[in-house]
C-alpha cells in the first residue's frame, strides 16, 4: 500500500484546470489547419480561420477559449494499491472552486436542476467518475465540458438485430439533430454495449482518448472511420453553416452486454476540446496535456 499526500498534487490539478480554460487540445488546432485546405466554400474556410485565430488569442492573451468554461469532468483511474491520506474527492471540488474564483472563469452550475436554478458561485460540484485499476498508478483525466454539445448527446437501447447499421443510423441522426448547436467541427464519443449507465460512461470516456486515435480492435477502428466519412458528407460544416468539416473524429468504446441488449450512447464534444491528464507514478506526478 502506497501513501499519496494529496496536498502535493493540488498545485498540479489547479494548474491543469487553469490551462484548460485558455488552451484547447493542440491536435484540434492541427486538424482544423488541415481542414481549411479541404474546404471549398468561403464561409466554411472563414469560420475555421476564426476558430484558429481565437485559439491563438486565447492562448497568448490568457482569455478563455469559450465563455462556457464548462462543467468540470474528472475521470479517475485509481490504482488499487494506493492510499490517499485525505479526501481526493474534496480536493478536486476545492481545486475547481479556487481556480474559478482566481481566474474569473464562468460559474455555470446551478444548485437544483428545476426548482432552484441558482448558480453555486464556484462552479462546483465537479462531476467525478472513479474506476479502480490494478497496481499503484493513478491517472486523473480532466475535461471542461461545455453545455451546448452536451445537450445534443443521446442514448438509445437498440435491438441486437439493429446491428452495425442501427448504430450508425443513431449516430448520424444524433449529429443531424445537433447540427450547428454542438459547435462543429465536433468530436463524436460513442459507447456501445454494457448497460444503460455504463454505455453513457463509455461514450464520455471515448472523448478522453487521444484525438484521432483508433480503437484497438481493427473492426471497430474501421467502423469509426466509416462513420466519420459519412458524417462529413452530411454538409453541416463548421458552425453548421455548410461545408465538409462536420466532425474531426469518431471514437468508439465498447463493452460486453446482455443477450437482449444493444445499448448505444453518443456524447458530442465541440471543437473547443479542453482535456488533459495527470499521471501519478512512483511518487512522481507527471502532468501533461494529452
Amino acid at each position, binding site marked *: 500500500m502506497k501513501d499519496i499526500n494529496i496536498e502535493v498534487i493540488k498545485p498540479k490539478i489547479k494548474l491543469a484546470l487553469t490551462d484548460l480554460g*485558455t488552451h484547447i487540445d493542440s491536435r484540434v488546432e492541427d486538424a482544423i489547419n488541415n481542414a481549411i485546405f479541404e474546404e471549398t466554400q468561403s*464561409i466554411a474556410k*472563414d*469560420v475555421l480561420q*476564426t*476558430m484558429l*485565430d*481565437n485559439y491563438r*488569442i*486565447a492562448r497568448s*492573451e490568457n*482569455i*478563455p*477559449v*469559450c*465563455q*462556457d*468554461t464548462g462543467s468540470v469532468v474528472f475521470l479517475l483511474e485509481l490504482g488499487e494499491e494506493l492510499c490517499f491520506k485525505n479526501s481526493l474527492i474534496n480536493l478536486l471540488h476545492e481545486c475547481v472552486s479556487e481556480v474559478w474564483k482566481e481566474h*474569473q*472563469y*464562468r*460559474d*455555470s452550475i446551478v444548485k437544483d436542476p428545476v426548482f432552484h*436554478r441558482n*448558480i453555486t*458561485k464556484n462552479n462546483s460540484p465537479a462531476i467525478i467518475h472513479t474506476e479502480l485499476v490494478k497496481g499503484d498508478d493513478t491517472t486523473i483525466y480532466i475535461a471542461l465540458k*461545455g*453545455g*451546448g454539445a452536451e*445537450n445534443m448527446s443521446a442514448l438509445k437501447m437498440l435491438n441486437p438485430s439493429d446491428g452495425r447499421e442501427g448504430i450508425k443510423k443513431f449516430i448520424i441522426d444524433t449529429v443531424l439533430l445537433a*447540427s*450547428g*448547436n454542438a*459547435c462543429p467541427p465536433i468530436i463524436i464519443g460513442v459507447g456501445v454495449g454494457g448497460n444503460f449507465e455504463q454505455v453513457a460512461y463509455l461514450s464520455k470516456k471515448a472523448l478522453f482518448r487521444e484525438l484521432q486515435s483508433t480503437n484497438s480492435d481493427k473492426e471497430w477502428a474501421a467502423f469509426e472511420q466509416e462513420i466519420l466519412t459519412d458524417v462529413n458528407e452530411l454538409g453541416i460544416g463548421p*458552425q*453548421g*453553416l*455548410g461545408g465538409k468539416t462536420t466532425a474531426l473524429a469518431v471514437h468508439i468504446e465498447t463493452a460486453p452486454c446482455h443477450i437482449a441488449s444493444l445499448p448505444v450512447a453518443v456524447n458530442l464534444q*465541440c*471543437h*473547443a476540446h479542453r482535456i488533459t491528464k495527470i499521471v501519478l507514478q512512483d511518487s512522481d506526478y507527471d502532468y501533461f496535456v494529452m
Partner: protein
Amino acid sequence: MDKVLLTGTIYTARDQAHKRIVEFIETGKELPFRLKDAAIFYAGPTPAKPNSVCGAIGPTTSSRMDRYTPILLDNGVKVLIGKGERSKEVRSSILKHNALYLVAVGGAAALLSKCIISCEVVCWEDLGTEAIHRLEVKDFPCYVSVI
C-alpha cells in the same frame, strides 16, 4: 450566405433573462430597457478581468430561446444573434416582423471579446452571467442565416 460586421448597441439575454422578460411583458411591468428595434445576443460572458472591458463572450444555442422569441419579436426586437437552427414558428415570426437572425461563431469567445468596446449590466444582476448586459460592439463578425 453573407458575413456582416456589427457596430452599435446589443443586449445579452439568455435562458433566465428570456423567462423574466416574458414574465414582465405578460404582467404589464415596464422593462428596464427598450425592446423596440433592439438586437438580442444569446450570450453569458465570463466575468471581466481587471483592466478589460468584457470577459470572454460568445453565442449559446438559440433554439432554447425559441419558445420566447415570437413574443420578443411581437414587442419590437429586430435582430437575434446566436448559434444553431430555429423552430418553424420562430422562422415565420422573423419573416413576419422583417427581423434578422445572425449566427456568430461558437467557441470563439476570446476573439469576439475583442470586438466589445463597452459592457455594463443593465438589470437582473442576481442572474450572474445571465443578467442583461448592454454591449457596444465594433466590427463584431456574424453570418446572416437564411430563413
